[in-house]
């Protein structure tokens, strides 16, 4: 039961990675359009650049979960 839950939740993490990035990029573009000054651009660019590798990491985590790599609790 728990192993099934761990496996299927992997799909959520795999989806969450790109979705959160999409949301972040959309918000960044919206905010930059509202306040097109250097400060705003730098701040949001930093967020997007920093969080992209983390989102990829979340996808990999989800993939491992889906492939039963976390079958027993670690």
């Amino acid at each position, binding site marked *: 039961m*728990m192993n099934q*839950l*761990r496996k299927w*939740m992997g799909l959520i*993490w795999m989806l*969450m990675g790109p979705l959160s990035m999409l949301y972040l990029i959309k*918000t960044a573009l919206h*905010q930059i359009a509202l306040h097109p000054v250097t*400060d705003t651009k*730098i*701040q949001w660019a*930093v*967020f997007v650049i*920093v*969080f992209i590798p*983390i989102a990829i*990491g*979340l996808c*990999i*985590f989800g993939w*491992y*979960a889906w492939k039963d*790599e*976390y079958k*027993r*609790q*670690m």
Partner: protein
Amino acid sequence: MSTSPKGIWKVIGASSVGTLIEWYDFYIFGSLATVIATQFFPQTNPTAALLSTLATFAAGFIVRPFGALVFGRLGDLVGRKYTFLLTLIIMGGSTFAIGLVPSYESIGFAAPVIVLLLRLLQGLALGGEYGGAATYVAEHAPPNRRGYYTSWIQTTATLGLFVSLGVILLVRHGLDSDVNVSIQKFNDWGWRIPFLVSIVLVGISIYIRLKMNESPLFTKIKAEGKTSVNPLKESFGHKTNLKMVLLALFGATMGQGVVWYTGQFYAQSFIETVCKIDFEQSRTMLIWAILFATPFFVVFGSWSDRVGRKWIMLAGMFLAIVFYRPIYQQFLDLSDTTIYQTQTPASISEPVVQTDEMNQRTIVTTSIVKTFDNGFAYTQKSRDTVFAGSSKPVVDAAPVYTEKKLPAPVYWKFVFLIFVQVIFVTMVYGPIAAFLVEMFPTRIRYTSMSLPYHIGNGVFGGLTPFIALLLTTINTGDKLVGLMYPIIISFVCLVIGTVYISNKTDPDVSD
């Protein structure tokens, strides 16, 4: 292969002093963010200046994972002792140098650029320090007391913040017998002293650390020729270890980082900038809360040796998710001035008028300090604009109530509310070093545990005040909207931790 009880305290003492100093160095920058904004950044737009400072502050956090990679690798190749000696020197040197950088007025844009570079060095050094200290202590500790002994290292991050706040307050008051003159001197040049003091502290710490021995586990694998040839590849290039790194990040350190920085940084920032509490009160509150809560790092670290690490850490995240909004709502309610506006003050100060000439207009700011019978006081600032060619001022907006001084009962309620948040911090943070050490093998431990720790704390945690501030500028209607960030991150981490992490402790870390 654990060290004798007497020896372990020497190990903890030497590691903790150095780590505490590194945290002190790192946090004086954050604690002085508003002063630094006026010194190193253009003053045309104060918000831009503050944001730039926070960005510089955030840069120090973002670079921490890179420090974890650089120094973690070094620590797994040449040893723990010399690596965290090096990080200490880099940290101390860059902190001292920040105290020497001329202001924006003197050298223009070179000032913020130099400060940013030094801040990046601080972040790199810190990225290498913590993993080394935690690994070093854990590799000396007996298996059944690993949580207890490493929790002493955990206290240093909070105590570093405590010392930084204490030194700042002492210097701020010690520059002149007249408090106002002393504060003026502090804002002009005295803020440099806490940075310069660092060199003395670092000197002492280097002396202590030079006398330490290498970790027994690392010495053993080195003697056997079993050290890693390429720790980065082994840590992140092999699925067996990478999946543990990802689990440590998403199931533990990500949530732990945001709880840590909300309780100890965002709380102070919120109290000062949103509730508008006086500079000194907002800092002394945090000092008291930290003082009362710090022993709980050891309590929860020690408890984790008996009941496991997982549920203590996750319970801390759960409590944070549930109680953050009520706690911060209390901050707002307790500092609200509405009821005082209809009351007659016990005393009203002489108005202080400040005029600023801008193109085609003059801004007139009038400040009055009102004190009430129960001891509550605030500064009421009204701003009028007089346009060129007109003698009639135009009232800009409703008065702003700042520099609020709370009466003792309310002040202690604030202390209690911060204390509760620091208790959450002690729950998530007390057992985490032992938890991370037990996840990874000796040959790549320094590298493997440092990266998730510093992404969790440096990126997720360190950006908390910055992201929370940005959220409040996006949704101006809800003053608590900034809390959505730590709440969502903690929630995701809580779910992952609950489902995927085991509560079993690993007695053998010599693998």
